[in-house]
């Protein structure tokens, strides 16, 4: 089952002007329900334009976007409803907090959905828990929180709408390694507990390798790859040519391969790489 289906999607900024720019060119893809999809591509590759089509913030110049099987731009479709189905957390979302209390800020989305007070309350608390915000913080002003807590509050505000698809754009930018791991592990847990679809846009190949099931690679407004993590990173040469990086451990394996060691370069997690190297040491040592 597809959560989001995109067919022949083209988006042109400033058409019919000298500044015309084709940001997306005939992109077709299917995002499966319940998957954890990583999205990579250098700045300007079209990934931000793409994700803004997933919840109807941008309208295709041509092509179709189906959410939950329905064309979101067909006549009579309530485009507002897609914002509740597909939640988008922008980069540095902490700058978008505005309410008097953290509680009210997280409740803003559910309130707009017209839910009952009890339902809103349970969703606010659930979202706060998913993001690791202590209950006593809910009555504080969001502006009294630390940077990391603010970001959690902003994410909780989107989670509280219980979107079928949660999109996170550079979720961990600017966080220290511990904060980064913590927030990503919480997203992983949210994913496995709720079974919802999660899309993670990141420049960190380490994070993509560690958390995603499949990876989508954008390049010059086109879809370059959409495949399992190991298969994407196995196409190292192509990735590097497009200006992307590889996970550091993949680089280690590739260097060993170049030096003539019979190493399986499809391993990418810490544990698998270690196991592969231990195997190699045992095998070639015999």
């Amino acid at each position, binding site marked *: 089952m597809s959560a989001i289906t995109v067919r022949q999607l083209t988006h042109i900024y400033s058409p019919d002007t000298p500044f015309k720019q084709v940001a997306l060119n005939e992109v077709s893809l299917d995002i499966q329900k319940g998957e954890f999809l990583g999205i990579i591509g*250098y700045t300007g590759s079209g990934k931000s334009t793409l994700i803004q089509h997933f919840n109807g913030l941008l309208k295709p110049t041509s092509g179709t976007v189906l959410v939950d099987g329905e064309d979101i731009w067909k006549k009579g479709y309530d485009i507002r409803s897609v914002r509740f189905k597909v939640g988008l957390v922008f980069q540095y979302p902490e700058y978008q907090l505005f309410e008097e209390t953290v509680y009210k800020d997280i409740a803003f989305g559910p309130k707009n959905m017209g839910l009952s007070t009890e339902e809103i309350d349970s969703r606010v608390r659930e979202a706060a828990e998913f993001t690791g915000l202590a209950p006593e913080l809910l009555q504080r002003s969001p502006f009294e929180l630390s940077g990391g807590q603010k970001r959690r509050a902003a994410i909780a505000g989107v989670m509280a709408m219980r979107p079928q698809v949660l999109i996170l754009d550079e979720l961990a930018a600017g966080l220290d*390694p*511990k904060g980064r791991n913590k927030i990503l592990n919480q997203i992983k847990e949210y994913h496995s507990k709720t079974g919802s679809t999660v899309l993670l846009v990141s420049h960190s190949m380490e994070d993509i390798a560690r958390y995603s099931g499949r990876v989508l690679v954008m390049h010059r407004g086109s879809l370059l790859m959409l495949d399992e993590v190991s298969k994407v990173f196995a196409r190292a040469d192509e990735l590097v040519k497009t200006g992307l*990086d590889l996970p*550091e451990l993949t*680089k*280690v394996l590739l*260097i060993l391969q170049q030096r003539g060691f019979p190493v399986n370069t499809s391993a990418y997690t*810490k544990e698998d790489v270690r196991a592969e190297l231990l195997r190699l*040491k045992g095998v070639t040592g015999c």
Partner: protein
Amino acid sequence: METLIKLENVSFSYEEGKTVLDRLNIEFKQGEFVAVLGHNGSGKSTLAKLLNGILEPTAGKVLVSGIPTTDPERLKEIRRIVGMVFQNPDNQIVATTVEEDTAFALENLGVEPEEIRRRVDEALKRVDMYAYRQHPPHKLSGGQKQRVAIAGVIAMNPRCIVLDEPTAMLDPKGRKEVIETVKELNRTKGVTVILVTHYMDEAAQADRVVVMDQGGVLLDDTPRQVFGQMELLKSVGLDVPPSTELYLDLVKTGGFELAVVLNPTECAEKIAEQIRRG
């Protein structure tokens, strides 16, 4: 090497009772490339802002080339010695073309037009942005914008550049461009580089790594010595480069010879050596 910046018993708090930096003593020498690490809230950005008088210490002294940063008469001089580059490139652009942006500070100082032309051209060539000199800065990529910001600073001929998480908002390519640019400046012009970062792989390329924790210096040594202390770094919310961790794991679980590697190439070489040995 000559000491360029010296912190003597420096304490700092934004509000009373909340100490961000606590009696810090640290020196930066001319020509060094120093990385500063620390978790969010460890005081590393505060430290950066103390280095050219954006912030004044609550107690103690910051001396830049012997001049205390608390001397308002000489603040201009200090800022000419120590230039700053911040995290968000969009907050640092003031003009409508790349070359005007680079010339901004020089024009404010009343430098002769021919001299401005010469220095701007040289600075833009150094950061490899000369071809873009007529471009509007807002159309550039993040990495290009940061290089323009660096050009604006080096046009002032500073002896030191402090960069506060300059790559946090950039893609891998942009990160590489910025780091290569500052390394090059350090190597060929002898500019002291102080790089505040969350990226362990960037810190691994420095001559010296200072690790901040709880308002003080936890470690101050070569990258190899610092990243050898994986457990300690993890306990304060930091990490080591993935290659370093992989190799230390192999030491622990596979009987590989103890070593601290800092990047994928070193890691692969050390592993190759161990495998060949059997």
